[in-house]
């Protein structure tokens, strides 16, 4: 292993992480909810009356983030994120992420941030599992195939 110093962004990543932590803190302390994206989105299928408003309000806020980010920090805006996977890969990946996060009851936010922050052994097992699968997938795709 060697460190990729040219792409390493400790300060932006740490401050971004602190913001993610603050958002998760506000959500549980003000709204009483776990900030887990796959759960928030997955709960829209099927839409249940009386359970829609908070999900849509949250997602609407998220949808505004790119415009607000660009207005606040145009220098940090990544014009073209590097997406190496082709469309077939993107489709397969989306299906796996949709299925897996629902079966496993959470993703990087629900298990990886909120679950670990509340010291849940269940979320620790989930996080170690999806991390391990992520490492393995990249190893196979990048180095073994």
């Amino acid at each position, binding site marked *: 292993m060697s460190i990729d110093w040219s792409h390493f962004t400790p300060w932006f990543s740490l401050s971004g992480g602190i913001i993610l932590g603050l958002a998760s803190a*506000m959500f549980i302390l003000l709204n009483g909810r776990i900030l887990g994206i796959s759960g928030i989105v997955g709960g829209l299928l099927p839409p249940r009356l009386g359970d829609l408003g908070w999900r849509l309000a949250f997602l609407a806020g998220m949808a505004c983030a790119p415009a607000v980010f660009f207005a606040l920090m145009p220098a940090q805006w990544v014009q073209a994120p590097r997406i190496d996977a082709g469309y077939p890969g993107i489709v397969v990946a989306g299906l796996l992420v949709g299925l897996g996060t629902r079966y496993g009851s959470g993703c990087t936010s629900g298990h990886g941030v909120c679950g670990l922050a509340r010291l849940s052994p269940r979320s620790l097992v989930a996080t170690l*599992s999806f991390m391990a699968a992520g490492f393995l997938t990249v190893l196979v795709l990048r180095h073994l195939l």
Partner: protein
Amino acid sequence: MKSRISEFLVGLLFGLGLLLSGMTDPAKVIGFLDLSGSWDPSLAFVMGGAIAVGFFAFAVAKKRTLSFFGAAMRLPTSGQIDRRLVVGALVFGAGWGLAGFCPGPALVSMAAGQPKALVFVLAMFAGMAVFELAERWGRRPAAEVPSA
């Protein structure tokens, strides 16, 4: 109304955090997952920062039954570690490693107008719909028993 505004602002803040941290750049995510190549440790800082802040919030939350806005405190109650949890997480991780998108960053990138993120999100919805249908199919015999 107060809670709708807070939900909106939390969603906005979360999206901003994802953009600032680098999570919305799939190549950066894959750079973190690529241990044997040239490794970019940035995402460990994202998780570290988020968990450090969240730790204190959840310590407070665990002691309360109502949120500061008076909503029920919906902390997960299941502590079950079963095959479903592990297999689900492994499948998610494989998809994450394949494209470099997890659900939050994909949604934010879709909102930023990235066509690949849109396709990813549509496929993710399809995957979630398959889960819902499979769950209902599995629950069907039980549903035929009249419930109280």
